[in-house]
């Protein structure tokens, strides 16, 4: 039941709400200008010939090309590969950070964050120095006799993956670390007091309560990797060609704005598909959260 409100007071409340909403206008303006307009422009461009007439030829050309589909496969492989390594390396690291004493955790965190403050180009070329045939790692491997021949660590998928994981790990780590740090220490104690080993506590309490963070981290990694350019360009040596590189090549070599726009839209659709997949998976896990206590 609603009681009739004093119109003057109701107007005050409305004015207050409107003021706070208006604070979002500058940001909305920039997002509209810098994101939505270009996307609309790209969609328009994808239906135009170089002469400026309407066509669906760009779509026919791009979608029938084997290069497009191999780029799509490379993009997906690179994204899932990077994500897999981020989860495998990042989750234990986040747990270590979250359970360390605050001083130690801050110090470790600084080490994790340091790469984020370094230019991506510097870091990528840094990997080149380490990974190439005459690089530090191969020199150590052959020098110590562990391998007879230098390993092909760079200018291929392996090198690209190493560079990508290195870049993405902190981005994955942050939300996972935040989720784990927010877990009440008494839950961990309660679990131990009831007889759980550390492994059982991690499996039954810590990981289930960190899924939110792991999902956020995974989504961030995906959004970044799916259109990532510099690392595959430098460390892939021309052999690793995801969609981002195909787009750049289509533009710089052929000045074909129409085809490049189609590729861009393809990337957008891929991102949306994976985003929906993530949300669906999330929903599903939330619904199944009341399992019994599997120990």
């Amino acid at each position, binding site marked *: 039941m609603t009681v009739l409100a004093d119109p003057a007071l109701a107007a005050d409340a409305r004015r207050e709400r409107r003021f706070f909403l208006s604070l979002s206008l500058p940001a909305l303006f920039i997002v509209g200008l810098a994101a939505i307009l270009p996307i609309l422009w790209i969609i328009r461009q994808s239906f135009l010939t170089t002469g400026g007439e309407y066509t669906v030829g760009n779509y026919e050309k791009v979608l029938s090309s084997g290069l497009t589909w191999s780029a799509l496969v490379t993009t997906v492989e690179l994204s899932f590969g990077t994500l897999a390594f981020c989860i495998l390396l990042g989750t234990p690291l986040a747990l270590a950070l979250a359970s360390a004493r605050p001083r130690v955790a801050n110090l470790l965190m600084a080490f994790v964050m340091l790469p984020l403050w370094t230019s991506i180009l510097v870091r990528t070329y840094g990997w080149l120095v380490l990974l190439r045939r005459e690089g530090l790692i191969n020199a150590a491997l052959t020098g110590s006799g562990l391998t007879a021949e230098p390993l092909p660590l760079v200018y291929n998928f392996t090198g690209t993956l190493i560079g990508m994981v290195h870049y993405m790990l902190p981005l994955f780590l942050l939300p996972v670390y935040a989720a784990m740090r927010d877990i009440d220490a008494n839950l961990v104690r*309660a679990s131990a007091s009831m007889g*759980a080993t550390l492994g059982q506590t991690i499996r*039954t309490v810590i990981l289930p309560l960190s899924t939110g963070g792991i999902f956020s981290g995974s989504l961030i990694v995906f959004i970044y990797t799916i259109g990532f350019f510099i690392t595959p360009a430098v460390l892939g040596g021309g052999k690793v060609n995801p969609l981002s590189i195909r787009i750049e090549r289509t533009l710089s070599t052929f000045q074909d704005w129409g085809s490049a726009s189609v590729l861009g839209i393809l990337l957008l659709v891929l991102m949306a598909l994976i985003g929906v997949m993530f949300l669906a998976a999330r929903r599903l896990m939330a619904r199944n959260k009341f399992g*019994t206590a599997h*120990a």
Partner: protein
Amino acid sequence: MMKSLPITIDSVRKAYGSYVALDDVSLDIQAGEFLTLLGPSGSGKTTLLMALAGFVRPDRGKLLLGDRDITRLAPNKRDIGIVFQNYALFPHMNVLANVEYPLALRKTPKAEARRRALDALARVKLDGLAERDIAALSGGQRQRVALARAIVFEPRVMLMDEPLSALDKNLRETMQYEIRRLHDDLGITTIYVTHDQREALIMSDRVAVMNSGRIQQIDTPQQIYDRPSTRFVAEFMGEANIVAPGAARRIDGADASRETLMIRAESFHLDAKIVGRDGVALEGTLRAKAFRGENWLLTLALDAGQEILVCIPAALASGCAELATGQRVTAYAPAAKVHAIPGAVA
């Protein structure tokens, strides 16, 4: 009834830097006893409880469960049930899954685990809520789930860390009786931590009053209340008046005690005839009076300058309403309620 065990705490010390949380604490708890650690925050009571649970490693000393030394035993091998202050229920499991959790860890067959979990829930009067989400429970219901989860695996000892502090007053009082009843049904050795002296008095077989990392006194609730061994215990346990030597006179004119006296505010009467000739009298000026529903609280300034609190039950307080501040008032206390604090200087 499950077999419970005695606990021995032998000269346990724990320091954090220069701060001594536990200062050589020794304590024997009998099998099946309900013992309360009572003290202000920072007195070491929770540290002691966490040391028993295995989450705080003592610097030295010994902890025995029965005749087994558990000082270095991992927390998950101690077989101790714990109820935490914030309940520590798993938010990603429903009520039943929370209570089945310790049984699942022990690889109890599913059907038996289910039966025992439902039994435990029935014991804490939560039948019918097994499938409920933790977030959908009230504070009191969460408290009961935490209790059910702590007893379901039949631990030898139960530790409770201020389990009722988050509940409102009425619910707290109900739960006090229920926890005590649960203890009496199961006969499980229980160590209960609280800073609420009434709760300690109501629930415990014995109370250990702690301050600054030491046990000040350990005794039955009645002894702790009526015969405190230190001034700290006297004042912590209720409205205590610490009366300097010589400030009180004997009603019969005999020589007054040369010791520091402790007289509870509610031990006083305004009528000398009720008290008996061997009681004491304290005379002073009325400074303030307050009606508190079940009683009147009078503040008297004694001639020596000290202020005392006098609490008169409303049923016996005819005349209190007419008292005016500045008026001379004499308060009488029976000899049985006057306690000399050994070695104390007021």
